[in-house]
């Protein structure tokens, strides 16, 4: 496939004491063993900071049975003949790779044993391994994997390979340092933005300044005369016959391009570009959503946040589409002694990965060599093949380490753009988005709305529950999640409203709003019922476990209760401390359960997050310290977005285009301490990139109420206005 992989650095991390081997022997597409026993393991999936680059090779190394100190990890390029699902998204990498990665290691180990059996003339069943050593007790024969690697590589791949017993794990379940740690802290080239090649040009784009607009004309002659500038032109990311896929948006399909020698020269040339924009017409397009054809209608017009607020007000009064109904909620609400009704909203959000969008492309008539940050390389291979009119076999894709993903880099339009620009220039090109280009491009987290109602009887029992959600342009409803299944009379309904503002998956899509809203509402219900918030949830979960209501309840009540009980215990929930204000929340999404207790202190009249407790059930934890880091990050991320961040609009234009106006959480605003606990079980691992992000927003809202007496219903809480500008 590739003769030289830029992503294989020759730098040795301090832990590797062995010199590089003279020869490598490939046992399968996942690993090769050097003649001196060093092992290179390919990490198949894109790395966005979720550290699969460490944990996926750990699975291989465990079953291969080697010393982790002898392992070198390489980022695999896109290689669909060897790897499946080379995708970062949905918190599925470990969950879906759990068996196949272990099998890859176990198969290679079996081949080494076969080789040793041949070498020593003994039965394979009598050979054992121990961290890179083959041993035959009967004859006293011993060999390092290195000496046996050549013969092992020639073995037939065995069919029936047995995996280790979970209790025999030595690597899985122990904390291993980030395999790129040393490279990161010494500033070595790792990211797409860092990639360079001979003869490479820099390209930047200009997209419409507002949603609902398109390019009318481009006058680039002045820009083309600027120092270092090669060419100014327009491109179309998708051609008219392109059928949109799940990760395509084409609001800004026709864009201006400036190509030059260096970034600063191109940035300066962009400033003197003369562009004219005009209103874009409404569109009706077919989108292929993983095999299902969906019609997407995009309205014309220039939308402002005030328009979106009017949508919320209008839709709040209308009936939605009922998605689930148990019992007779309408009757129970009409008989209720007390009804609690609350409405929650959140704004659009920009992903704002620290590394802006970028990609490198070297397109010739014979080949396309693409290098950069992408969460969906396989999908993009097909998409770019069509766009360039090239066979997929002629396209090479190398995935660089990404400076953040959060779902933004699922949408690889920038990769197509880079390829089209390189083809136009006949030279390698690195396309870079400025922060302003990036933050105003769209692909936002949608703006959501939810109204919750609870009916209580005269004795303050909860007799009915009603949730109605909506969004621009999608609804965040998860009708079958808790508390569905715990309440006899339950209704969930939803509405949507079209928009020409483009949206995309943002860390824990939909959950990233609805969890916080639901968990804040449950807090109010508990308070009205005179119940402790955790005990209230546990009572409902008890009902859901012992005598569930309805069908298809999308959670295991005992595991959900498990994380609540664990966080209650670890936070010493019932210990009274009048200077600490505590909020709790819990949620289940992306297959894992998370419960939080958040402790606030008031300092000089300002709430300060002192400590967060996090209890997680994600099954077997592959790399405990890395998992803890990821959970800590989810907590900080959740608090930050709930408190501070928003994209607002005026006449189609985002009102924030850099970090001076778009606020992200900073050091002093993060919790002073975060304590993470994992439920210890032997359930197959489930995801962790997304689950710790949603619930903390509810815990924050609940703690703020305790501390200030004020409940916040509209994110960001710092302004707490519906879609504040």
């Amino acid at each position, binding site marked *: 496939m590739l003769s030289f992989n830029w992503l294989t650095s020759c730098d040795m991390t301090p832990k590797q004491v062995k010199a590089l081997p003279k020869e490598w022997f490939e046992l399968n597409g996942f690993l090769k063993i050097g003649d001196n026993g060093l092992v290179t393991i390919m990490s198949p999936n894109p790395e966005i900071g979720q550290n699969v680059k460490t944990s996926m090779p750990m699975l291989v190394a465990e079953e291969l049975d080697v010393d982790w100190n002898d392992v070198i990890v390489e980022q695999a390029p896109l290689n669909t003949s060897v790897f499946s699902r080379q995708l970062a998204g949905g918190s599925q990498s470990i969950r879906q790779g759990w068996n196949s990665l272990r099998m890859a290691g176990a198969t290679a180990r079996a081949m080494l044993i076969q080789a040793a059996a041949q070498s020593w003339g003994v039965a394979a069943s009598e050979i054992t391994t121990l961290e890179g050593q083959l041993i035959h007790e009967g004859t006293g024969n011993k060999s390092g994997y290195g000496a046996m690697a050549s013969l092992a590589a020639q073995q037939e791949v065995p069919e029936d390979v047995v995996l280790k017993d979970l209790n025999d794990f030595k690597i899985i379940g122990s904390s291993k*340092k980030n395999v790129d740690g040393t490279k990161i802290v*010494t500033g070595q080239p790792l990211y797409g933005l860092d990639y360079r090649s001979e003869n490479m040009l820099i390209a930047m784009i200009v997209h419409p300044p507002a949603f609902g607009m398109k390019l009318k004309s481009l006058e680039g002659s002045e820009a083309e005369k600027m120092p270092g500038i090669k060419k100014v032109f327009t491109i179309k990311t998708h051609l008219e016959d392109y059928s949109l896929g799940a990760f395509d948006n084409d609001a800004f399909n026709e864009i201006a391009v400036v190509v030059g020698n260096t970034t*600063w020269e191109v940035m300066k040339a962009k400033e003197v570009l003369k562009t004219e924009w005009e209103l874009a017409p409404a569109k009706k397009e077919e989108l292929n959503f993983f095999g299902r054809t969906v019609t997407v209608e995009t309205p014309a017009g220039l939308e402002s946040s005030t328009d979106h607020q009017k949508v919320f007000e209008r839709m709040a009064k209308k009936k939605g589409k009922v998605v689930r109904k148990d019992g007779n909620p309408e009757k129970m609400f009409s008989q209720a002694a007390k009804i609690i009704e609350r409405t929650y909203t959140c704004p659009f959000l920009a992903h704002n*990965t*620290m590394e802006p969008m970028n990609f490198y492309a070297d397109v010739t008539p014979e080949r396309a060599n693409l290098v950069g940050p992408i969460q969906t390389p396989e999908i993009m291979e097909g998409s770019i093949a069509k766009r360039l009119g090239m066979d997929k076999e002629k396209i090479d894709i190398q995935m660089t380490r990404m400076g953040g993903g959060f779902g933004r880099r699922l949408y690889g339009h920038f990769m197509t753009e880079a390829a089209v620009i390189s083809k136009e220039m006949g030279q390698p090109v690195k396309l870079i988005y400025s*922060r302003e280009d990036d933050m105003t491009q769209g692909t936002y987290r949608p703006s959501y709305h939810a109204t919750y109602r609870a009916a209580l009887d005269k004795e303050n029992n909860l007799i009915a529950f009603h949730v109605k959600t909506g969004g621009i342009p999608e609804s965040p409803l998860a009708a079958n999640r808790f508390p569905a299944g715990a309440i006899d009379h339950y209704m969930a309904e939803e509405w949507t409203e079209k928009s020409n503002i483009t949206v995309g998956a943002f860390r824990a899509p939909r959950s990233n709003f609805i969890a916080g809203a639901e968990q804040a509402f449950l807090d109010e219900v508990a308070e009205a019922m005179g119940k402790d918030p955790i005990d209230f949830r546990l009572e409902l979960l008890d009902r859901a476990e012992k005598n569930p209501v309805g069908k298809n309840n999308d959670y295991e009540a005992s595991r959900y209760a498990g994380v609540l009980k664990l966080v209650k215990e670890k936070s010493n929930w019932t210990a009274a401390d009048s200077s600490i204000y505590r909020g709790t929340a819990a949620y289940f999404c992306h297959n894992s359960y998370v419960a939080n207790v958040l402790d606030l202190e008031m300092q000089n009249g300002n709430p300060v997050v002192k400590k967060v407790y996090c209890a997680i059930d994600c099954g077997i934890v592959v790399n405990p310290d890395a998992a803890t880091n990821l959970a800590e990050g989810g907590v*900080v991320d959740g608090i930050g977005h709930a408190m501070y961040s928003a994209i607002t609009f005026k006449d189609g234009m985002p009102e924030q285009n850099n*970090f*001076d106006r778009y606020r992200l959480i900073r050091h002093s605003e993060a919790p002073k301490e975060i304590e993470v606990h994992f439920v210890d079980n032997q359930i197959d691992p489930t995801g962790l990139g997304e689950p710790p992000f949603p619930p903390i927003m509810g815990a924050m809202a609940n703690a703020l109420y305790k501390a200030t007496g004020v409940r916040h219903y509209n994110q960001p809480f710092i302004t707490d206005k519906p879609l504040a500008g």
Partner: protein
Amino acid sequence: MALFQLNVNGTTHELDIDPSTPILWVLRDHLNLVGTKYGCGIAQCGACTVHLNGVAVRSCQLPISAVGNNALTTIEGLSEKGEHPVQKAWIEHDVPQCGYCQAGQIMSASALLEANPNPSEEEIESAMNGNLCRCGTYTRIKAAIKTASNS
């Protein structure tokens, strides 16, 4: 275009370049030192932090014309092989997630500790507040700075 002599990590470079070019892009595009990162271009995120005579500055807003013969240190020049106490502390606490902001965090932290070897919690937060981390490693960064200050 004008001629400049630039002192980076102890080496002098001669550059014929637009005087308004920010040091960030001089490093990345002209000197092949890509450890210093681009995050915002307006000194709001700290990813581009370098040392100018040992003081942390945002190189995205530092034009080459303003540097003169002052000494610039980048993440690549902080130590020979990652042995700076701050770098070692970062490894000990396994700080990075995506890692993109960390060079800038390390440069801010090392400048802080050079000027103030025993900072309080508030002093750490104040000095580091200009460095964004989108992955939320702030608690680990703080722990690593405390470790480095104790070593």
